[in-house]
């Protein structure tokens, strides 16, 4: 029996090596999209709607500067973006790109009041609406909070996903480490702070699991049933997904130095945002300006952004329509874990749907009452715009 186990273990390594010698082709971020606006390295992507008539208020997803937005569209069967499209939303996402030396002087204000604001303006213009839904993820959630506080007139709903706002907590290792970092020296030396520098910090959070056990676990999950095609397909699919995640983890863009400097000092070291003392280009960010509906989503076992760092947002804003959701998952699991598709996305969709209508009209209410309301002229105009766009995309 013991001998058999040993042979099985060797077989797993052998099959694993065979799979790696002929690596399966894989891709990330495959949900069809078009680039509708570019500015410097930033691109605004619009995902092709998959329903005939999407919910009226579009969603703009703002991701963090660390790592890439496609974690939300990592693989076709675990894609937050695809799920939102299937739920009938019109989805946009900001791709920050890869900053280079020329971007070292970009400030936090440039990101929030420049790029995000221009992306919002663009979507407003295309949709013919005055407000959009902002869905901010991780550091992108913090940026979205800053934006919503400074431009509440542009935001219909604010959804924050694992977003830190109160940095004065000892529950997160990053929060502890950040306090002792001499950020000025780091920025002064690097200019553009290397993604690898930050990645080495993330790996240090749990080096034995992240640098050894993860890879041992990968080989351990390989199944060894010779001549079993179904099993081989399963193995190949597993390795593909493993490689997708591996690509995402180490696909870390460098950080614009001045933005990194302000974010680390004002947020992580001085915790100014939650105290309403943080400034962007001289203007204070007052979280009390946030009056729109707020959905604050957290992961219970988040090792990067502890719940203590996200929860205080709900009390810091003036919104009366606000809800907090905590899912029993981790910082990454909330996007790609088993709960993501089954619980997280459906709950966000359910919260957003009644709030994604013009003039507060409840689509569901209308539908359930089975009354056909006359479409206002504005809505007809928007629909015509959408049709025109769709036909343009199809032609391409």
């Amino acid at each position, binding site marked *: 029996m013991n001998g058999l186990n040993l042979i099985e273990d060797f077989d797993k390594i052998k099959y694993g090596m065979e799979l790696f010698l002929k690596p399966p082709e894989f891709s990330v971020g495959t949900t069809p999209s078009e680039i509708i606006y570019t500015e410097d390295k930033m691109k605004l992507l619009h995902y092709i709607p998959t329903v005939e008539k999407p919910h009226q208020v579009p969603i703009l997803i703002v991701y963090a500067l660390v790592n890439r937005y496609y974690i939300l569209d990592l693989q076709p069967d675990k894609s937050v973006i695809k799920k939102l499209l299937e739920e009938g939303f019109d989805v946009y996402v900001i791709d920050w790109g890869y900053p280079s*030396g*020329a971007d070292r*002087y970009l400030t936090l204000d440039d990101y929030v009041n420049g790029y995000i604001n221009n992306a919002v303006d663009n979507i407003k213009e295309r949709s013919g609406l005055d407000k959009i839904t902002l869905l901010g993820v991780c550091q992108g959630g913090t940026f979205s909070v800053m934006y919503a506080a400074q431009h509440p007139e542009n935001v219909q709903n604010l959804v924050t996903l694992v977003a830190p706002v109160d940095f004065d907590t000892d529950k997160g290792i990053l929060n502890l480490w950040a306090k*002792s970092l001499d950020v000025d020296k780091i920025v002064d030396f690097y200019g553009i702070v290397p993604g690898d520098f930050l990645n080495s910090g993330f790996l240090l*959070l*749990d080096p034995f699991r992240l640098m050894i056990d993860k890879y041992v676990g990968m080989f351990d999950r390989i199944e060894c049933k010779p001549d079993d095609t179904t099993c081989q397909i399963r193995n190949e699919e597993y390795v593909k997904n493993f490689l997708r995640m591996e690509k995402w983890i180490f696909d870390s863009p460098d950080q614009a130095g001045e933005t990194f400097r302000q974010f680390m000092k004002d947020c992580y070291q001085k915790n100014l945002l939650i105290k309403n003392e943080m400034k962007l280009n001289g203007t204070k960010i007052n979280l009390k300006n946030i009056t729109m509906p707020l959905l604050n989503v957290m992961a219970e076992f988040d090792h990067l952004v502890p719940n203590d760092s996200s929860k205080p947002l709900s009390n810091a804003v003036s919104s009366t329509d606000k809800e907090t959701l905590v899912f029993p998952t981790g910082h990454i699991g909330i996007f790609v874990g088993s709960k993501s598709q089954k619980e997280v996305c459906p709950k966000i969709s359910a919260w957003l749907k009644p709030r994604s209508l013009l003039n507060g009209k409840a689509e569901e209410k209308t539908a359930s009452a089975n009354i056909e309301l006359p479409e206002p002229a504005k809505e007809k105009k928007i629909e015509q715009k959408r049709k025109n766009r769709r036909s343009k995309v199809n032609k391409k």
Partner: protein
Amino acid sequence: MSESDGLNMEKSNFESTQEFFDQWLNTYKATMGKLVEMPSVGPAREKSEKMMKGFSTFANLYAAGLDTSSNFQTVFMEAMRKVQEKTAPDMKGEISPEKYKEFYNTWIETYSETFKDFSKSGHFVSDMGKLNSCLMDFQIYNRQMLEENYLKPMNLPTKTEIDEINKELYSLKKTVKELKSQIKELKEKK
């Protein structure tokens, strides 16, 4: 190995290396350190003063590095002690593949947890902060020396000059964006 052979492995731990280094560093600061920080004179005054500063920058980095290594060493020893405690009873008798897997699981779990506890400690946080700060000082110093002693004499562009251009470019781009936005607003008003 007996003491009469001149070796006592029990006493030869990392702490003694650390103590030796601390003594060396204190001696260095009191003697050579003072010497290299002495004000330079003569035509090459500026250059030699800057070059001398490199010694203390390196000494600081080396000291911080040794502190960090020493702490890592202690954590590894502590983790190994815990693993040994947990696995010793099970490792008696025949060693089977199942036991090997159990051993691996205990090893990874114990090391992971011990290291996580250590990484949350104030000790680790201040050590890493200090090491990082010394490393940045050393890198900044190295770049300055490279620029002044090699790139400038060779008439090659330096990072400092490229940064100046980048700053100017950033400022110009920002102005263009603002002007474009103002033009757009004016057009819309018309």
